[in-house]
Structures are given as structure tokens and as C-alpha cells.
């Protein structure tokens, strides 16, 4: 079988060579590839050169060192020790980030799975409508939705009016006074569509015949779900965790809008604030580098598994 496939591929290649001049297709990919090399890959080298670079004499602004042999580690050492020591500058923000992102991603899965399942299986003739409604957040400005949430959550906003009016609360609750709860809900609200999208794509591909087989073989609906649907949606859950969780590590604006106190700061806030002052730019660069190194393994794992799924004709 593998031999046959290889022969087939060789025949395909021969076919293609026959009708396209050498380098024909490569030329089409060149502009985008060069663009990414210059504006996506090279900037990472700049980040390295600034992190391990020096500072100018008087203003103490960062001075990138382009020769890796001259790189010096003090800024990186400073950043790492402040990330890992309990009294470090970035320690609290680092821990917050991990806890908030973990809880928010978990909640996104809890909310997103039934919603995606509904859309794939149960929406019936309303499916077109729900598709549009579910994915509306993708084209409605995030900032506009956050502005609306702020208005709703104000002390005199409608949420508090409803809660006090119905007697659940005796006085308005200060949602926006730097609560971790509000921040996590804001993150869930902002990123749950990114969980639903891959889950829906996966659930939608599971064949009805497999579910029927599960039922025919005597499985209860619950058993069919746990033995057939859930294992098959593993790929979607994994993709959801990555697509929904990764951008949260770079989110500082939700914290700024919904819970702007030092007690809820995340690592992205530290990065953003560092860049505002020239003398701290190198620290911001070092933090970005650390973030990148931490996020590369899940990114690679995700890219590899989607690649494999695509090869099997699943994705």
C-alpha cells in the first residue's frame, strides 16, 4: 500500500512537471513567503537583539546588538528571576495569567461544547439562522461589545438594576472594581466563539452512520455520546484549547476595561506597560520572548496534529 501510494505520488509529480515550467508554482508563493520572512520572522530576531542588547549611554534607551556573539544576558536574567520568585515584579501577573486563562478556557469548553453540538446536530431547519447568530461576534467589534458590557455592569447599569429590583441583591454590586470574576467572564465572553468554531467543524464531520451504529449495537444515547462522539471530537477540543487559549495570553485590554486594578494584572499588561517607557523596552522584549517560548510547544503540537488530521482527510 505505501509503495503504491509512493508510485502514485511519483506519477503525480511527473504529471505536474510536464505541464508547469520549473519554479512556476514556487514563484506564486514567493511574495507572501518573503513578506512573512521580513515582517514576521525577522522581527523575532529584533526582539532577541534588544533583549540581549545594550543600552545607550545617557538616555538608557535600548540599543539592539545585531551580532549574536556580543549578546549579553542581564535583562533576560532579571526578567526570569522576576517571573519565578514569589516577590518578583512579574510573578503575580504570571500566576494570574495562567490561572485566569486556564479557568476561562475551561469555561469556554463547558459553554462551547453544547453550543457547537447543538449547531451540528440539533438546530435542524434553524441551522442557517443559528450559524449567523453564533458567529456574529466575529464581525462585531470587540471594543463595542466591551463598551456595552461596561455600561451594563456600572453601579447604576441594567444588571444591577435588575438584581436589586428583583430583590436578589439589596444594593448594587461593584462589578467593575477590579474583580477577577468579571475579568474571567470577560475573557470567556470574548474568546468562546474561537472554541465553538473548531468544535463545530469537528462535530459536523462525524457521520450519522457511526452514531446509528452505536445505537444499533445497544448503546444508550449517553453511552453513544461518550464512546463515539466524545472520542471523535478530541481533535476539535484540542484545536479549541489552542485557538481559544493562546490569544488570551496576549490580552491586556480586557483587564484594562473590566477590572483595572493591580490585583488582576496579567503578563500582557506587564509587556504593554514596559513598552511605554524607553528604559523598560528591553524588559518588555524579554517578556515577549519568554511568552513565545512557553507558547511554541502548544502551537507546534497543534500544527502537527492538524497536519496529520489533514493527511487522513479529517480536517
Amino acid at each position, binding site marked *: 500500500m505505501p509503495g503504491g501510494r509512493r508510485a502514485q505520488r511519483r506519477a503525480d509529480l511527473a504529471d505536474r512537471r510536464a*505541464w*508547469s*515550467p520549473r519554479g512556476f*508554482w*514556487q514563484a*506564486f*508563493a514567493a511574495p*507572501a*513567503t518573503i*513578506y*512573512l*520572512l521580513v515582517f*514576521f520572522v*525577522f*522581527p523575532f530576531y*529584533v526582539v532577541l*537583539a534588544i533583549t540581549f542588547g545594550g543600552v545607550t549611554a545617557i538616555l538608557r534607551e535600548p540599543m*539592539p546588538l545585531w551580532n549574536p556573539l556580543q549578546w549579553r544576558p542581564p535583562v533576560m536574567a532579571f526578567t526570569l528571576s522576576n517571573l519565578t520568585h514569589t516577590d518578583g515584579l512579574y510573578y503575580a501577573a504570571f500566576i494570574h495569567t495562567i490561572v485566569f486563562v486556564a479557568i476561562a478556557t475551561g469555561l469556554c469548553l463547558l459553554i462551547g461544547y453544547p453550543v457547537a*453540538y*447543538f*449547531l*451540528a446536530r*440539533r438546530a*435542524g431547519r434553524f441551522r*442557517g439562522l*443559528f*450559524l449567523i*447568530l453564533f458567529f*456574529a*461576534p*466575529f*464581525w*462585531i*467589534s470587540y*471594543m*463595542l*461589545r*466591551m*463598551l*456595552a458590557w461596561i*455600561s*451594563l455592569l456600572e453601579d*447604576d447599569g441594567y444588571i444591577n438594576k435588575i438584581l436589586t429590583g428583583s430583590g436578589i441583591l439589596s444594593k448594587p454590586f461593584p462589578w467593575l472594581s477590579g474583580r477577577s470574576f468579571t475579568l474571567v467572564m470577560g475573557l470567556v465572553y470574548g474568546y468562546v466563539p474561537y472554541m465553538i468554531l473548531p468544535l463545530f467543524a469537528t462535530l459536523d464531520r*462525524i457521520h450519522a452512520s457511526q*452514531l446509528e451504529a452505536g445505537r444499533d449495537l445497544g448503546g444508550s*444515547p449517553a453511552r453513544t455520546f461518550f464512546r463515539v462522539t466524545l472520542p471523535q471530537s478530541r481533535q476539535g477540543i484540542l484545536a479549541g484549547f489552542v*485557538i481559544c487559549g493562546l490569544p488570551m*495570553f*496576549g490580552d491586556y*485590554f480586557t483587564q484594562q476595561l473590566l477590572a483595572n486594578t493591580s490585583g488582576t494584572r496579567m503578563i500582557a499588561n506587564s*509587556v504593554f506597560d514596559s*513598552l511605554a517607557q524607553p528604559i523598560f523596552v528591553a524588559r*518588555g*522584549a524579554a517578556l*515577549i520572548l519568554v*511568552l*513565545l517560548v512557553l*507558547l511554541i510547544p502548544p502551537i507546534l503540537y*497543534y*500544527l502537527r496534529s492538524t497536519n496529520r488530521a489533514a493527511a487522513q482527510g479529517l480536517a
Partner: protein
Amino acid sequence: MSAELGIGAPPPRRMGFLARLANPWAQTRFLWVVAIGYVLWTLIPVVEAVVFSFNQGRSVSQWQGFSLRWYTGDPDGSVLHSPALQQAIFQSLKLASITAIIAVPLGVAFAISIHHWRGFGSGGANFLMLFSFVTPELILAVSLFLLVTHAFRFIGQGTLAQLVGLVVLGLAYPVVIVRARLVSLGRSYEEAAMDLGASPVRTLGRVTIPMLGPSIFASAAIVFAISLDDFVVAYQLSKDASTQTVSMYIYGAARTGPTPAADAIGTLMLTASTLLILVTVVLVRRSNRKRGESSSLV
């Protein structure tokens, strides 16, 4: 549409929407409640923002009567009279259109290339593209910020830097969408054209690209919508008030003390992107129907 899409559903139930909700024994009731609750949760804030853009007073949380004050009436703060608001709208539209004009051709060419080219390097180029797709936006924005402030100083912060960043951000969307389309089209049309003696260039121009029309249009709409709403990249690479976008304006207003003008400008953008998406959906579906294909979105 529903017949084809209902594949996964158990025996179809001929029950009305309300009857389904009212029937306590329907298995799907829980899922319906979750789904409708989810829609309300996502869309109620949007309704709030749209409604309050028509507020008569300055408050974004206390309703004080209907007016067009924040669109046309107010001599300082309304969209019609505030130079800052108009500047932000203009900047957002400018960035989004130019980004789409640059990113879509680059991405489409890349997708066509990767679809045909299986030799050395194609895997790496594809990997690079997908990597840029999943890298958190903050990492893109910060590394580009350092690039334009410390290496390519001739770019500097401002409109050009914002464009550069938005193209990185949007580039992968046309690639993903067009590749999916190429895979579903298969190779037979192109092979037929070649067998009939068309050169590769001619096949591309007369067969491949016309068949990709709807997905190219859909990618352009998505890249436009994403650039229009982008905050992190545009903010990090902005120079001053002259390169402020709508998202940046709303962010600033939300942090300091918003007036309904922020809701109004957001509502205008919302209207624009909704129209764009609707036009896209209609065009794509019509062209698919003409070809007698199933109604997938892209």
C-alpha cells in the same frame, strides 16, 4: 439546505419551534436552552450599544429618550461634527481596504502555489504561514513595534507600520479559505483544461481563478472585517491621534468616560461590516447554486 445539513440528526421530528420548547420530554430541550441562552448572552450587549447610540443624554447606561444627537445633532461630540471621530472612521476604512488589497492577492497566490507545489520548501512555507496564523496578536504587535522603532526606523510608527502589521495578521485567512476551496474542487477541471491544450498560465487565468471567485471575495470580506475591528496591532503601531482607529477611539472612551458617540461610531461600523458579510453570503450562495453545488459558506 436543512435536508442536506440535518445529516447528523436522529429521525426528524415534525414539531414546531415553540412546541419543542414546551415539550418537557424533548431530548433536545437542554441544548435549545443553552443555544438560545448563548445567543442572548452574546447579542444583548450589542443591542444595548446600538440602542444607547440614540440616547438623548450623555449617559451610556441611563436611558434619557430617543434622539440623533450623537449622530448628527451635537455640535461637538456627534459623528457628523467631531473631526476626531471622522478621522478615526477614515483611518479604519483606509487601513482595512488597503490591507485587503495587499493581503488577498498575496494569500491567494500562496494558496494556489501550495496546492500545486509539493517539492522542497512547500512544507516550510506552509508551516510559516500557519504559525503566523496562531501566534497571539500581542506577540506580532510587539515584535513589529520593536522592528519599526529599532531596526526599520524609516517605517516608524504610523499608518505604514499599521498596514504592515495588519497584512501579517490577515495574510493567512485567504490562504486557509482558498486552499479549502481548491481541495474541494479537486484537480479534474484544471487537468481537463490542460488536456485540451491550455498552458499553465492560461489554465490559471481561465479556469482556476474564475472558479475561486466566491472564495476570493469571501477572503477579502473577512480580511477587511478583521482589519476594521483590529485593536492590538493598530494600537501598538499607531503614532498619535492622527492614526487613531475606531477601535482605539472606543477603547479610549470606554476607559475615560464614554458618551453615546462611542456607541454611535461603533454602530456605524457594525452596520458596515454586517452589510459586507450579508453581501458576501448572498454572492457566495448564488454562485454556488449556479454551479449546482451544496451550500457551504465558502
